[in-house]
């Protein structure tokens, strides 16, 4: 194996051991809902919240 590649692997392995695996939030809960695809602008969001609170 190319020594520079091996060095990178070692460095990444070392970092992973220290930092661990990053926790991932499911895309379904973070930004995968259909509401995220529909409300895309600040104006839409403001209008939406206004309507929601007036219901």
């Amino acid at each position, binding site marked *: 194996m190319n020594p520079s590649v091996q060095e990178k692997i070692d460095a990444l392995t070392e970092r992973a051991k220290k930092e661990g695996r990053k926790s991932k*939030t*499911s*895309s*379904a*809960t*973070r*930004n*995968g*809902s*259909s*509401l*995220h*695809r*529909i*409300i*895309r*602008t*600040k104006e*839409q*969001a403001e209008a*939406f*919240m206004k*309507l*929601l609170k007036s*219901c």
Partner: protein
Amino acid sequence: MKIEISSEPHRLLHNVYNLAFGPPDVRGKIDDKAELQHSNYSKVFSTILFTGLTYLNSNPGHFLGIDGSSNSRAYLYYRFLQKNYDYLNRFFNLFGIKYYVRVTRFGKTQYDDPFDFQDVKAIPESIEKKMIVDPKFMFNYFIFNKN
């Protein structure tokens, strides 16, 4: 069954959090399109909403949203809400949102339903008891907060 409330709100709706549920796949990610057989669906859905209530008790200003990932599933949720309306209404304000999400359904189900050209805006609507909604134009998203 895994129930997960997002740790981050909607990017623009700062107090709307998504509540997702379903069986976890091999990577632990919720599969909200899985078809499950439960002896008592109402009990399953009540458990999910109870989780939501516990969360809202700790976060009273928040709204929780449930995505009806397909028209049939959204209809199922709506039936649960109606069936248990009196009980749920004691704890929650319930809202439904219809929008032209059908165009965002890619793949096999994209053209399952006709487009509803009246639903071009995401307008939340309060869900009332015995409210009749045509199953073909069912709410796509449900939002609730604490009474």
